């Protein structure tokens, strides 16, 4: 049984990693200047002309790397939250984490404390996300139903949104306001290796924290009491997941604005492939998230429009109807859910 499960997950992970790899190379080739795969590969190993090298290495590589990092950690955050709360509708964006992270970042930008390339930005964004998720768990309590969590998340999201609106409102000049507004939409355009370097350490911490409790997520299939009786400390697990989601989402928002729904959709797509096992779901969910965001970021460059559509707008345009479909599908179950 063990070896069989191993091989099956191994194939799935290799398959998804290949998909991510292909999308990554496509992402390096697509844009105002189209580059063929051999040119892209050549540029990566320093075998192409100067122009191709600049386009691939300096312009598109950071963008593709961020898509993998942000999509991957969003998928992982979604899978971890869904495992912790034992509900497939849980996701970072539903609970206000990205809005709160955005507010944290906007607050320090608009106060003129930092510029957009400072390490203080992710710290502020992570603090915002951390406060929001902690507040959520505090307001909702340990045994909260999904309804209570979503209502509390809505309230926190609204509060963070109001804070961000206030910052826009009080912006020193219209250009500053416009800059913040565009940044909020969520985009991977014109990012540099500096952004990658800023986000990477925080995301690494987030990934470690989120991967920590894989076995506990499996045990939680049986409910909180049974999981506890199997030797898992739920208080610590909740803390780790909160901190992990905050670090991952906060770092992502800090470098790319808010990109929603990847955390909801990514685990959902691969869950049947691991037979609904919340522990085995983690790595495939991360790869699925990376693939989704890479694909979305390629799509925004292919969709003809006067100015490039922000990737956060596209993920919301696709993700929100997906969420509605998911609710429709589980309507009867949700109607019977304890309030």
């Amino acid at each position: 049984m063990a070896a069989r499960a191993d091989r099956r997950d191994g194939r799935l992970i290799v398959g998804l990693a290949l998909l991510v790899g292909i999308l990554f190379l496509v992402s390096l080739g697509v844009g105002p200047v189209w580059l063929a795969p051999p040119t892209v590969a050549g540029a990566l190993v320093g075998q192409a002309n100067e122009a191709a090298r600049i386009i691939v290495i300096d312009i598109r590589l950071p963008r593709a790397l961020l898509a993998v990092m942000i999509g991957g950690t969003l998928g992982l955050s979604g899978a971890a939250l869904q495992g912790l709360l034992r509900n497939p509708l849980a996701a970072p964006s539903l609970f206000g984490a990205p809005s709160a992270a955005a507010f944290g970042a906007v607050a320090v930008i608009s106060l003129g404390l930092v510029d957009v390339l400072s390490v203080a930005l992710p710290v502020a964004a992570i603090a915002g996300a951390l406060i929001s998720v902690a507040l959520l768990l505090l307001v909702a309590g340990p045994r909260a139903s999904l309804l209570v969590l979503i209502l509390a998340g809505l309230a926190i999201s609204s509060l963070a949104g109001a804070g961000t609106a206030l910052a826009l409102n009080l912006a020193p000049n219209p250009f500053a306001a416009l800059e913040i507004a565009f940044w909020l939409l969520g985009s991977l355009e014109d990012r540099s290796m500096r952004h990658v370097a800023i986000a990477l350490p925080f995301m690494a911490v987030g990934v470690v924290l989120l991967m920590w409790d894989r076995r506990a997520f499996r045990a939680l299939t049986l409910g909180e009491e049974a999981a506890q009786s199997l030797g898992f400390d739920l208080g610590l697990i909740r803390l780790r997941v909160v901190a992990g989601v905050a670090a991952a989402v906060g770092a992502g928002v800090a470098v790319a604005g808010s990109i929603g729904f990847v955390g909801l959709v990514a685990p959902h797509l691969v869950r049947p492939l691991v037979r609904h096992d919340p522990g085995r779901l983690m790595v495939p969910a991360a790869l699925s998230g990376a693939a989704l965001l890479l694909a979305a970021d390629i799509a925004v460059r292919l969709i003809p429009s006067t100015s490039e559509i922000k990737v956060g707008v596209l993920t919301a345009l696709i993700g929100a109807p997906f969420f509605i479909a998911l609710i429709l599908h589980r309507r009867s179950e949700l109607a019977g859910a304890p309030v």
Partner: protein
Amino acid sequence: MTETAQGLSAKGISVSLAGRMVLSDVDLDALPGEFIAVIGPNGAGKTTLLKAVAGLLDVTAGSVAIGGTDAAKLSQRERAVQIGYLPQGHLFYWPLPVAEVVGLGRLPRGSGADLSEEDRLAVERAMAATGVAEFAERPVTTLSGGERARVALARVLATEADLILADEPTASLDPRYQLVVLDILKHHATAAGAVVAVLHDLGLAARYAHRLVLLDGGRVAATGPPAAVLTEERIAATFGVRAEVLHRDGATVVIPRSVIP
């Protein structure tokens, strides 16, 4: 199994929840080989007692010893290896295949998604004992109530803990499955360890348990062999029910007749 030769010994357990004393000074013992049934009216503190013994909530006073070791000195993992806890309701949140659910019982033994040979054998034994092997590959959420109850029990058995604490293992089961589940628990008690089960059916409690612990208002109202605990006066005093208690062929039968106003 030798280190747990002394079974379970809980002394003077008191628990207060939200400022209210739910249990006061309750003793609970289960020697190896014993099946203990905890009975009592709704709200008597039966579930709280089981959770306190399992270490799922903090006690305000009292001590729990498992196999002669103070449970407070055990890590959560060590405790999980020694106590199998079956919560009420037999809930499953994800549609995992039955065999995977039963395999979760091996988690305190250090197993992840991939089971060792030893784990696999324990899971097979647990599934065979509960008769769930035939639907090992089916998603657990598609099973009937009786099947889910047996899967939940198999998961607890798979841990191979000596002591099993079962909270209403027969609730919402038809008569056949009630007997099936209690037979499995009784077999575990006599073969390997000890069982403490919260039961609502007084007749079944009397038939299966070596000893009963009758809780009322958070205190032990009576404890001892079924025939000694289940008297008409005591049932009237604790449950508020006029009942007829018959003794036939060495078994105790309780027939609730009417509510005492």
